[in-house]
């Protein structure tokens, strides 16, 4: 069971209290009604799924109930950082012992 630092509760809590909520920084297009089939599929279906650092959303469902973001290494399952929803993707260059995916920087936008 993972131990996750909730940026709102400001402490590490057991995974049991959290719900994973998929890839982070995927923004719902403002003009969603107009976008192409491909653009819609890219937004709704296509995912980064990196072997290495993933930017993902969690919800502290059984805690403060807030959604927040995390950067986690999908090889070691170690969290590099967690941060509040709405905050920009942190710059992790130089973060120690992390597996950089084949193509990093691709945000999935």
């Amino acid at each position: 069971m993972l131990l996750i630092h909730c940026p709102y509760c400001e402490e590490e809590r057991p995974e049991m209290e959290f719900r994973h909520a998929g890839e982070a920084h995927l923004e719902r297009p403002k003009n969603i009604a107009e976008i192409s089939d491909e653009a819609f599929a890219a937004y709704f279906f296509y995912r980064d799924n990196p072997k290495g650092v993933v930017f993902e959303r969690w919800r502290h469902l059984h805690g403060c109930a807030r959604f927040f973001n995390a950067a986690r290494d999908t090889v070691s399952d170690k969290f590099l950082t967690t941060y509040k929803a709405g905050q920009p993707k942190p710059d992790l260059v130089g973060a120690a012992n992390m597996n950089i995916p084949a193509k990093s920087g691709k945000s999935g936008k």
Partner: protein
Amino acid sequence: MVEATTLQRTLPLEGRVSSGPRVTIRPAPTAQRVSLRASADAVSAVSKGLGVDLPITPKQSARAGARAVLWLGPDEWLVIEEGERDLLADLGRAKALYSAVDVSHRNTAIVVSGPAAADTLNAGCPQDLSLEAFPVGACSRTVLGKIEIVLYRTAEDVFRVECWRSFSQYAFAFLAEAARAR
């Protein structure tokens, strides 16, 4: 028009009690409860209305007389009034933008007390309940076995477990079973 008999609240755990040498589990009496939501700018006004300063630090609670305010999230508090003062009326006096929803009957509470109280809860609650990590007055929404609870430490060996009404049978049975193994 049939005569308006005044009805009594009947709690889901009416009459249940489980007591062992090191821990006792019993339902708490009826209470008023409000799920309070407000953004930072409304905190002081709402505090005034309530007559209790809303705690703004995670996991902390504040208390005034029979009224306790539990921090659940950055804009969420659970207010518990065990006395007679009308919670919603008091909140009504607060001139600010907030949401107050009556959940007096949604929740019901179980009091777990005794030297083995923390161990009993740790049978199903994955948080660190040592006094240094979860001191008297600490509160948190968390899990107990397979349900969600709000845990509130009211004394060194006394915890209040708030859960939704229909989960209370499970919560009580779980705690009783856990206590049995102490």
